[in-house]
């Protein structure tokens, strides 16, 4: 007992030092000072303070979560230790920064930063407050393990929501200002910056109360869908609700959010396509942007009066763009069929670059406009209405995503989908079963290319112009990332991944230059803690937890052996 307890002191101290190190890093890159103006709760605490105190809280929480079954006394002590250690590192930074000029190396090491860290107090009492608050953070985290889980879950929810709402104040006010009678009450929660203290208390009480109530509700027998008829009715009702919500989103959310949604949906379109190539058939394609470019440029070339004496309309050009993408998919597919894994990735990467460079080249300028791109691209017309605002184009994206998601979903459960998966799992065995891998791989490439191309045509119509520089490698990587974040091979995963990956940078715009730092950190944390993705394919999940599986298989094998023995 004694030895076990003493052995935990060292990791706890380490965790505290790491938390302090993170807080120092965030201070020195300038995030603390920049966001000190942004209040979460007006006049009480700012975003900057959250940034340098949160590491202690989080580290303490995760440390204690890992080390279960401690006495409550120990939990508080470890929490306190982590908080104090983290605080000491910050204190050390302040002492160093105020006595020496660190600015030669750390440009953000200004007196302003140290004022913030000492809460605008004189040095000695300021440092005491800093240390005390860090310690409080550590103890707060341990508190969540001491109270009943139902309460602590509700409290955590409440705090998270207060932080989020305070942070996104401007966006929330912009959106709710369109909601008529609701606009006034919502606005009254907020101050000029962040939430009003009373507003924060109200929000916290509301959210944690709701959460507490919902968690405690016993599942009544009536809720369990006993009859299949009821269940299918519920199923369709849910879908109908979702569709109505999706249709109503643009007027509810306004132009800014509709624009974000357009981007999100465009990436969903591409993501569903790449998911077929990478997720279903297992062909790692890093040049996926090529098909997007081909779709967009075909639309441009055929509909722009700049390049065309007799330009087509969007709908006339669409089938040609689709055919061009399928053909391009086949052209890329043919030479790379023999390649696997990393080799395939490099070749497709090259293909993507070739397409971009062709579009950029002076040689093809008369057709593709070179670095000037193509302007005056036609926008889709339905009846007498030209779809030209973000909100109208949203419906076109929605329609495209709906059709493509349905096709992908049907494909996955078809013989073709299973054949792709068989090729992905073991190509040689698949061939020995009689699967013509050439034909099936080409089909995967062509389908993926088609979906990406459709996204390209809407993209061209939305901006009314295409430029070679929008067709860069980063697009391919973004699409690949969103599939991985969402869950490889999972169709709902594409939606979630795109929402998180393409939506959050837009929402985080306030973080200005730090948003990609935050975004990168999120990616790293995500892959470490949840490698199977946010909404994984059930089968994929099994694979990534192979260790557990192997352990299980071991148990199975032993059971099997003993069963055989006893049968003999």
């Amino acid at each position, binding site marked *: 007992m004694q030895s076990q307890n003493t052995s935990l002191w060292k990791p706890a101290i380490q965790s505290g030092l790491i938390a302090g190190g993170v807080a120092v890093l965030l201070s020195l890159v300038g995030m603390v000072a920049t966001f000190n103006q942004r209040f979460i709760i007006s006049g009480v605490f700012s975003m900057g303070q959250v940034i340098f105190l949160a590491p202690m809280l989080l580290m303490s929480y995760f440390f204690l979560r890992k080390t279960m079954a401690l006495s409550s006394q120990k939990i508080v002590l470890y929490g306190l230790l982590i908080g104090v250690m983290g605080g000491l590192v910050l204190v050390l930074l302040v002492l160093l920064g105020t006595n020496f000029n660190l600015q030669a190396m750390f440009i953000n090491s200004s007196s302003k930063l140290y004022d913030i860290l000492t809460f605008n107090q004189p040095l000695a009492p300021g440092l005491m407050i800093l240390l005390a608050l860090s310690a409080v953070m550590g103890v707060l985290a341990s508190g969540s393990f001491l109270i009943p889980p139902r309460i602590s879950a509700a409290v955590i929810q409440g705090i998270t929501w207060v932080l989020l709402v305070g942070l996104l104040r401007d966006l929330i006010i912009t959106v709710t200002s369109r909601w008529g009678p609701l606009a006034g009450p919502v606005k009254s929660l907020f101050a000029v910056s962040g939430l009003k203290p009373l507003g924060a208390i109200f929000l916290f009480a509301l959210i944690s109360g709701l959460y507490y109530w919902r968690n405690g509700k016993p599942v009544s027998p009536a809720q369990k869908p006993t009859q299949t008829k009821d269940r299918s009715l519920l199923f369709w009702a849910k879908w109908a609700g979702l569709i109505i919500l999706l249709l109503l989103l643009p007027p509810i959310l306004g132009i800014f959010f509709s624009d974000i949604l357009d981007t999100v949906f465009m990436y969903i379109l591409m993501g569903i396509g790449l998911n077929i190539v990478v997720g279903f058939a297992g062909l790692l394609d890093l040049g996926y942007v090529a098909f997007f470019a081909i779709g967009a440029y075909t639309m441009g070339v055929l509909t722009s009066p700049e390049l065309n004496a007799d330009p087509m309309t969007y709908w006339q050009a669409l089938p040609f763009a689709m055919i061009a993408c399928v053909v391009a998919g086949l052209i890329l597919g043919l030479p790379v069929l023999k390649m696997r894994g990393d080799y395939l990735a490099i070749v497709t990467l090259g293909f993507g670059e070739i397409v971009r460079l062709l579009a950029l080249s002076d040689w093809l300028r008369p057709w593709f406009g070179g670095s000037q791109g193509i302007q005056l691209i036609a926008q889709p017309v339905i009846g007498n209405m030209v779809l030209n605002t973000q909100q109208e184009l949203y419906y076109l994206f929605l329609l495209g995503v709906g059709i493509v998601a349905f096709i992908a979903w049907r494909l996955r459960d078809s013989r073709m989908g299973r054949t792709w998966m068989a090729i992905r799992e073991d190509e040689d065995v698949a061939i020995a079963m009689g699967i013509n891998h050439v034909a099936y791989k080409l089909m995967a490439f062509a389908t993926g290319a088609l979906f990406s191309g459709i996204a390209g045509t809407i993209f061209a119509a939305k901006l009314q112009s295409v430029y070679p520089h929008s067709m860069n490698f980063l697009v391919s990587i973004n699409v690949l990332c969103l599939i991985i974040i969402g869950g490889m091979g999972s169709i709902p995963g594409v939606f979630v991944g795109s929402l998180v990956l393409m939506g959050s940078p837009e929402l985080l715009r306030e973080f200005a230059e730090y948003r990609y730092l935050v975004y990168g950190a999120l990616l790293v944390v995500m892959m470490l803690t949840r490698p199977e993705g946010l909404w994984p394919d059930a089968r994929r999940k099994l694979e990534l937890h192979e260790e557990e599986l192997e352990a299980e298989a071991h148990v199975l*094998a032993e059971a099997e052996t003993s069963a055989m023995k006893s049968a003999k």
Partner: protein
Amino acid sequence: MPLLEVENLHTYYGNIHALKGISLTVEKGEIVTLIGGNGAGKTTTLRTICGLLKPREGRVKLEGEDLTQYKAHDIVYKGIAMVPEGRGVFARLTVMENLEMGAFSLKSKDQVNKNIERIFGLFPRLKDRRSQVAGTLSGGEQQMLATGRALMANPSILLMDEPSMGLAPVLVEVIFDTIEQVNKEGVTILLVEQNALMALGVAHRGYVLQTGEIILSDSADKLQKNSTVQKAYLGME
């Protein structure tokens, strides 16, 4: 005419001469085993027969028809099915889906269902786990699945690559029992094994392979008594 006839097969990996003129025959209804140590060319022989590797020289004939002219994925239509080394089940497909994939070459849905029933009769364990993902099966079950999957194609000859690999001894016995049973139902089997003792126990005839060449061929009984085989592969002095 033998069912399968391999004539003077030379296969290369790049510049490495892996098979140096292999010739063997398998008669209809037989179990023939190919034994030998690591790197002797056993797996290479099987992969060349089913077309996954192209020989530089030599012929593979099934009922007199030369198979080397066909693409790998067409060969299963001629009546050759393979149980790959290390089982090679499609880990993320269910047991049922794996079996259906095995019947990829069959056109008739009725035939597929009939075969599935037959496989479930042969391996009742698979029936219990029909909707389970193959990657979560135990080693023995995966071997059953791989064997069942190959049988789904109604092959006239089954190529089995090291079915005993990585299995507990009791399970190896079970697998070899089913090999005999499948053979009694009329499927010819070419069996590659490192476990020479077990392989020679079920086989009618055997070939001994060493560094890409056949050094011995005889009936299984006689090979078991052969002093070279006893020393090198059966661990007897």
